[in-house]
């Protein structure tokens, strides 16, 4: 529990907002893939904290950004916070993405709000050849395009309806990409079906893949065991916990069903 001051709030699309936190603590500690567990005020309408990925950090301004979509009660309350006010966050929590060696190459594949944690990942690996493949519902849902463009050598965008970039899914972009070249690692974050498909494609092309999983959380620190995710365990499976053992996993470990 740290009270972090909000330095800015900015709508990036009709339902996605960026919250800029003034926090040297986060700037110096946040690693790509980690998340904050954010308290959405003290209303009993959103009692639990909400897990939100760290999307970006800016050393010059001493700020860390989280970007989130307004979906239910909690994110709605959070979107109402005003600059100057404080939010109560736990974290950075969870395990970060494992990096690629300098000089290597990577591809990030993001679906909708799942793309946010990938930005910080790109930003922290400037010595790596980086490609970003993002999928969104439609033109209106596209956010952070410039930020991704300026932190990768190549950015491709797909939209379900073709209203921006190519028509189709981010996984179609990945498929085409892997047919041409094999990066050292693919990093995927997005809706479950998309991650499942992406991991399948990577395995087919025998490319390393890391995924960032989502699950409903209680404590956020590994104490309550609610955030279970099915992982391979010998011939069978086990329930591993997203908040503590994840959110980043080796894509091959996950049992998607």
């Amino acid at each position: 529990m740290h009270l972090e001051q909000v330095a800015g709030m900015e709508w990036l699309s009709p339902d996605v907002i960026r919250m800029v936190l003034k926090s040297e603590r986060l700037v110096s500690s946040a690693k790509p893939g980690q998340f904050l567990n954010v308290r959405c005020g003290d209303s009993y309408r959103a009692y639990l904290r909400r897990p939100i990925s760290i999307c970006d950090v800016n050393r010059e301004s001493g700020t860390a950004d989280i970007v989130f979509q307004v979906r239910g009660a909690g994110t709605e309350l959070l979107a109402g916070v005003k600059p100057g006010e404080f939010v109560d966050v736990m974290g950075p929590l969870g395990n970060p993405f494992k990096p690629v060696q300098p000089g290597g190459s990577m591809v990030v594949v993001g679906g909708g709000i799942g793309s946010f944690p990938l930005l910080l990942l790109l930003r922290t690996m400037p010595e790596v050849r980086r490609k970003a493949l993002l999928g969104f519902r439609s033109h209106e849902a596209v956010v952070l395009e410039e930020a991704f463009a300026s932190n990768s050598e190549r950015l491709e965008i797909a939209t379900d309806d073709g209203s921006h970039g190519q028509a189709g899914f981010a996984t179609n972009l990945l498929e085409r990409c892997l047919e041409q070249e094999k990066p050292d690692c693919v990093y995927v974050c997005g809706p479950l079906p998309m991650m499942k498909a992406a991991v399948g494609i990577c395995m087919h092309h025998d490319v390393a893949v890391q995924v960032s999983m989502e699950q409903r959380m209680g404590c956020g620190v590994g104490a309550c065991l609610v955030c279970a995710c099915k992982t391979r365990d010998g011939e069978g499976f086990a329930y591993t916990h997203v908040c503590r053992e994840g959110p980043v996993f080796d894509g091959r470990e996950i049992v998607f069903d």
Partner: protein
Amino acid sequence: MSAEKTADLRVNVAGLRMKNPVIAASGTFGFGREYAEYFDLSLLGGISVKGLTLEPRMGNRPPRIAETPAGVLNSVGLQNPGVHRFIEREIPFLRQYDVAVIANASGSTVADYEAIVEILSDADVDCIELNLSCPNVRQGGMTFGSSACGITEVVTAVRKKCRKPLMVKLTPNVTDITEIARASEAAGADSLSLINTVLGMAIDIETRRPVLGNTVGGLSGPAVKPIALRMVWQVARAVAIPVVGMGGISSGSDAVAFMLAGASAVMIGTAGFVDPMVWPRTIGEITEYLDKHGFSGAGKLTGALELW
């Protein structure tokens, strides 16, 4: 006032001696490791560890948690590493701290309960809390904890094997909690803890499915507080053994209310998800209340409610 004296927080719950009446509730605090990063576990009176079974259990399919108004539904389903791993790996960790260790034990059969209690009686724990009430395991606790016969059968059997203070944890999902409480007392429980979670359900109207992978789950958090308080009050009047109260406690005021209703100590669970500091903070808030109202010790609060 001269020389301010701070109230004596120590409590003795039928042989379970604690330096204060605040205990972390089972299943919400793991084995303490995670929260040791947030505060000194030695501050707490006790820790009731994640529900243990003889063999490791992998728990229910996700999602395992749903948010409800002022509450939380969970359907973890007793995921745990088994009692042996607990003894090997977790007790040594917990013993680094000056805090009472309560082993929360579950099973599917009377034999399971006997076996786990026998094992735990030889382990370095301060108390065994019998969970006869977890609503998530199909053939498990529910059947035992929700009828006086079930309770009598298990507790009588376990009592013979148990060489630690035996706390029996009650489920609120019953018609008459006092009947269950009296049966537990008669069968040999040293103390009672209540309430476990209230069986509930949440539905996602967009997917038209239950939110929980297990369909139903156990409700905890502030929403259940009035139900828990009522049951603690009823039970404390119905039995002579000490009662540990829980269900929605999230402040010293809540803890005091449970003690006034008859609890000798309290457990806090769900509120810690929202604010991990609730555990240590509640201790301070109880102290303030005692001092402000001239109670010399925490024990003096127990049952001090006046009726109309």
